[in-house]
């Protein structure tokens, strides 16, 4: 699969946020993972939101080619970690992962969460979990469903170094062949990947 974003521009209230951003990803290549870099306020989140189909660029194009077929950017199935956790507070960690889709069984969610969370936290309402634990639930929720691309916006916020390393290991082991697009200020421990600098 080829994902090609060309000359993406976006402005808010007359202020240009993205100006001609290009991104090409060949999912069959070893170079498919991308680290989005740049100072705060440069448009990293906006660009990720455009890829996720939550924003429409003012100009530019997106083409996704799957074998012979080509389709627009909105056709991409996305697994996403938002800047905030966006979990359903009243539900447990397991239910937060399962409620996304009927294809995720309780057993599968539990097994995945066990890799990054202590067993006794899996059935508690997420509102009772710490910020770091919630973050890990959000990461598992992004990884588990079938998707074409994984998008993560500052996924390591609130994680200590040891947990971050564990989470990075979990992500890299479970993402399969899906390209990972990650915006993070905390790059320590991340495997070497292509960088896209926004400024």
């Amino acid at each position, binding site marked *: 699969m080829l994902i090609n974003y060309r000359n993406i521009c976006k402005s808010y209230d007359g202020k240009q946020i993205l100006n001609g951003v290009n991104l090409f990803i060949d999912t069959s290549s070893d170079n498919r993972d991308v680290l989005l870099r740049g100072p705060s306020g440069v448009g990293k989140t906006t660009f990720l939101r455009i890829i996720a189909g*939550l924003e429409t660029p003012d100009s530019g194009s997106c083409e996704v080619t799957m074998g012979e077929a080509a389709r627009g950017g909105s056709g991409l199935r996305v697994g996403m970690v938002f800047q905030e956790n*966006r979990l359903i507070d009243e539900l447990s960690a397991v*239910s937060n992962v399962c*409620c*996304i889709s009927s294809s995720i069984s309780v057993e599968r969610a539990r097994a995945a969460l066990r890799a990054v969370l202590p067993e006794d936290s899996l059935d508690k309402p997420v509102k009772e979990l710490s910020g770091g634990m919630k973050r890990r639930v959000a990461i598992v929720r992004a990884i588990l*469903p079938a998707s074409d691309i994984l998008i993560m916006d500052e996924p390591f916020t609130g994680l200590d170094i040891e947990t971050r390393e564990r989470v990075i290991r979990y992500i890299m082991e479970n993402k399969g062949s899906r390209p990972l697009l990650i915006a993070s200020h905390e790059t320590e421990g991340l495997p070497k990947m292509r960088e896209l600098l926004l400024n």
Partner: protein
Amino acid sequence: MKPDKNQYKSIAGKVIIILIWICIWQLLSILIHNKILLAGPVETLEALWRMILTGQYWKALTFSAARIIGGFCAGSAIGICLAWNAYRVKLTEDFLNPLISVLKAIPVASFVIILLIWAGNKMLSFYVSALIVMPVLYLNTLSGLKASDVKLLEMAKVFRMSMWRQVRYIYIPGIRPVLRSAFQAALGMAWKSGVAAEVIGQPLGSVGNGLYQSKIYLETADLFAWTITIIVASFLIERLLLKVIGRGLLLKEKTV
């Protein structure tokens, strides 16, 4: 769970207050000394007991309760469905706005008379209750839906959550508090308007008809007895329905 000491105290306090009011009522009836103007609590209870022992009383209660609860359920269902439609399609909201404003402004008596002409008196309380309840549920549900967590809805969009799952995990928990108070308010209004409709429309064998007969024969004790019946029935049915509705709205995790 057993009530604790403080709960017992609170219940006892409420009972004492009610007893004081009943004493005031009894004193007033003694002072006025006219059973037509003000029947006392003793006469009222006697009248109630006399009525309870007749089959007619239970028939009337069943007749009215079935229609009023039916109207409440129908009005609620229509209000919620229309609110969902209006939330999804702005044009529906714009289209319904004038109708809802008119329904809110029309006095119950006008409704009753119009519906009496259109539909007769047999099902009058059903239609009136439904028409009174519908705008309440519509407006509250719509405002609850509009206040849904946008961030969670974006999450649902990204993960392509089915509409059913969005309703279950995002919309219903969001509107639950609004809906609960709307149901409570609407149920009280359904009873009041339903009985008022029966008093005007006079369907035979209804609570409203019983009330009217008491008025005609100047049986103030019977009038009070019917009023107590309505209050108690409304209270009990409200408790029961809110429990059922509350259960329906609850997010049961085990069924994920």
